[in-house]
């Protein structure tokens, strides 16, 4: 690899101060340091440095997301063929191929657009390219529905990089989690395309296949019936939970009584809750949802890796689960509507709760920074997530809003934790002066 080193050495003067391409130094530096750890040595302070750097840390997080990505690719294909009733005709390889063709373009668009914007800012401001987006660029594809139009992914990525990160000063300075803000942007800007039951599963027929007249039967090239369309295949766990409240209200209206006052209406809601997916299915992740969020197993593998390497915070993850379970138990006890009867495990495995908790809530920049603060921060994320889900049917995915809300609150939590330390010091001083 000596020849590569020589190339870098030879090119470097052109990009340094006073060189021909001085302006492009951040770009050159970005590529050179991707290839090599630079030969900089310690100048002041410690003479030896730990082998960890931000590139390695970010790389660790990306590796932790790989199980989710791989599972998401397969599951995208599986949900597609399953909804059309074609899993017999199209096996695992076809499913992976279909998923890959859907997911990989989203990943590419997210990275190319996001890094492009970052590079532009770095060159304009003359600061080095920081590694933060390497993680955001992988997170964005994993939290959008597989069928999201690529231009929407691009717009959301640009929005989050510019308005969430760069205007605050770049990596390490943002208040909100950039990837999650991109998701929130999509959610609020394109609600029609990206929520409801139709967003999650691709229902386009493969070439040569056609619907029979009634639209629920799929025919192959020879006109034989090969599949049966699953009418509610696209419904996620959360929309099913949500529907229970709607069903109760409808029934109550039908009976002409106040909502909740009627046992019959309540039962109608409970009927809607009747399980479409077994608990283990949502644990394994063979359910519709955003690309990377469905499989709790894949998420737990990632979580294990993050915790082992010390990159993810156990405090946030555990207190988040505790907060969610705490809120669920309160709701279960109250039991005022059918949604409130959903159990803790179902809540934990549904929607983006686990994915958000493991990969987004633990983002060190937007989370609380003190150790005590992390516990409080995680607890309220779990608590608010369940509260938003149950109380506000307009936003089925409570996790996104809960994390963003706590991102905003994190500096406040830290402030009080730190003030406590300052107060202790002042009290010690007072005690000491009183003694003398």
């Amino acid at each position: 690899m000596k020849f590569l080193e020589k190339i870098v050495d030879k090119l470097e003067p052109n990009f340094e101060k006073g060189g021909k391409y001085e302006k492009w130094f951040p770009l050159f530096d970005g590529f050179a340091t991707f290839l090599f750890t630079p030969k900089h040595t310690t100048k002041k302070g410690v003479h030896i440095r730990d082998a960890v750097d931000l590139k390695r840390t970010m790389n660790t997080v990306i590796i932790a997301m790989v199980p989710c990505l791989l599972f998401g690719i397969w599951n995208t294909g599986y949900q597609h063929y399953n909804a059309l009733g074609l899993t017999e005709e199209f096996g695992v390889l076809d499913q992976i191929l279909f998923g890959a063709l859907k997911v990989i373009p989203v990943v590419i668009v997210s990275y190319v657009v996001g890094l492009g914007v970052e590079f532009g800012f770095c060159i304009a401001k003359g600061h080095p390219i920081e590694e933060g987006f390497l993680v955001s660029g992988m997170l964005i594809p994993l939290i959008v529905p597989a069928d999201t139009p690529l231009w929407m992914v691009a717009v959301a990525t640009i929005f989050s990089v510019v308005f969430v990160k760069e205007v605050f000063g770049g990596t390490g300075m943002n208040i909100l989690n950039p990837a999650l803000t991109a998701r929130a942007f999509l959610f609020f800007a394109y609600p029609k395309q990206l929520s409801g039951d139709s967003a999650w599963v691709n229902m386009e027929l493969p070439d040569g296949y056609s619907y029979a007249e009634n639209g629920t039967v799929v025919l192959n090239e020879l006109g034989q019936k090969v599949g049966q369309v699953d009418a509610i295949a696209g419904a996620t766990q959360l929309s099913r939970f949500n529907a229970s409240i709607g069903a109760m209200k409808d029934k109550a209206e039908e009976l002409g009584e106040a909502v909740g006052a009627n046992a019959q209406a309540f039962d109608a809601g409970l009927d809607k809750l009747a399980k479409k997916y077994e608990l283990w299915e949502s644990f394994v992740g063979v359910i519709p949802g955003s690309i990377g969020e469905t499989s709790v197993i894949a998420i737990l593998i990632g979580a294990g890796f993050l915790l082992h390497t010390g990159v993810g915070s156990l405090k946030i993850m555990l207190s988040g689960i505790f907060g969610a379970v705490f809120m669920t138990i309160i709701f279960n006890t109250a039991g005022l509507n059918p949604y409130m009867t959903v159990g803790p495990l179902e809540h934990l495995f549904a929607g983006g709760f686990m994915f958000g908790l493991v990969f987004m809530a633990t983002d060190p920049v937007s989370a609380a920074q003190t150790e005590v603060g992390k516990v409080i921060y995680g607890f309220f994320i779990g608590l608010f997530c369940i509260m938003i889900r149950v109380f506000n049917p307009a936003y089925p995915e409570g996790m996104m809003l809960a994390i963003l809300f706590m991102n905003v609150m994190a500096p406040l939590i830290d402030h009080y934790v730190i003030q406590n330390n300052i107060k202790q010091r002042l009290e010690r001083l007072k005690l000491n002066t009183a003694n003398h």
Partner: protein
Amino acid sequence: MSVQIKLRKGADIKLQGVASRIKVDAPPSDVVAIKPSDFHGVIPKLILREGAKVKAGTPIFFDKENDRIKFSSPVSGEIIEIVRGARRVILEIKIKIDKTNSFEDFGTTDVTKVPVEDLKNKLLNSGLWTFIKQRPFNCIANPDDQPKAVFVSGFDSSPLAPDYDFLLEGREEDFQLGIDALAKFARNGFVNLNIPAEKVLRFNSTDLFSYTDDVGREIEVDYKTASNVAASHGAAKALQSLKNKYGKASTVFTKAKNVSLGEISGQHPAGNVGIQIHHINPVNKGEVVWTVNAQDVAMIGEFLRTGNFNAKKVIALTGSEVALPRYYSVTLGQNLESIFEGNLKESEDTPRFISGNPLTGTKVEKDGYLGAYDSQLTVLPEGNKYDLFGWAVPIQPNKFSLSRTLWSWIMPSKAYRLNTNMNGEQRAFVVTGEYEKLLPMSIFPVQLLKSCLVEDIDAMEGLGIYEIVPEDIALCEFACTSKQPAQEILQTGLDLVKKECA
């Protein structure tokens, strides 16, 4: 009187090149140098000029801010050169040693009877006062203060640190005299002396030692075999005998009188006197604690006993690039070339010479001079080389990380040959909780550093800047993912607070 402190935070960094327990006299050097930069914050005013003849203990310059604080020659000879840098700042004062070996005579002192003011004056005039430092700020103590306590750490926990028990072997009497003198300064009337609760054994894998086996034979083994306890009964026995011999703090410390003995357990920075003060008698705003290095206590003791400034100390020559790492008896300000020369391993890498330890030491040239407060020299390989995908490869035998993002955690007892590469580039603070794990103090280090960066003095005071000095945060700087210069940031903050508030 005894306190026990258990520290759960911190980490020991194991490096190659621990000094073997062999003491030799350093080859004599012709020239010694005093470097005013060793005394942070001191503005030197020369008393003597080039060509002046000096004896050991003759004052050469004083501090412009406090003319009572004098700095004197460690040897007898002639000032041959005053090296100046930019804006005529004095960098080095070089003294050529003559053969007379003469001392300024300050007269012997009866420590029990001497009035405190006379004691102070004697130390000030002989230049020995400069070894008494103060917290906050870690500068030379102001003789007008009366400190609420005096602290001495009886061990050093930093990487490759010398064994203080070995440094002070045979100096019980002088050490005790020094302690007695220091106890007179403290408002509480004693010295806080701290020793390790369990001593960490530091040996090189090839260090040989012998033990007696079950049937009474003398058997010689190397440390690597002995520390592999699982391997054999003999190894366990060998390690046990080693522990019996070296595993306890020396009686120089444990039998010392006039002290409150503290037992500190924990990893680095447990040996830092600042950490010990924080847990035993923390410095509040407006308070002062004095600290003296253990070896300098003995030097003060000897001075009081003999009336002469005998500027000798023992230092450890350590580091992976040293052929025979061991202890040397040297003169303060000694030229280092004679120590390094012929004692370096053959290597492709250029060596880096450090006066001090790898975390807090100062880079020196091969023919440089020993730092005023240093008891250690370290030689490490420079890391001025590219490393292909160095940030991504998970298993790299020559790199070490306290985090588990690199697989160095699978070999917890391995000693490393670390080089001086930055292993990355400086970034904004991103990772949290990293510093907190390595600083056994009730202080929020990152928030304190940020308050230093924005020069918010109120925040610095609130967050405890009076209790901390750069060396306490050096381990955090080592581990920092964002490669922030933590010690430098903290020093800037301390300088600002000192200028504005003290």
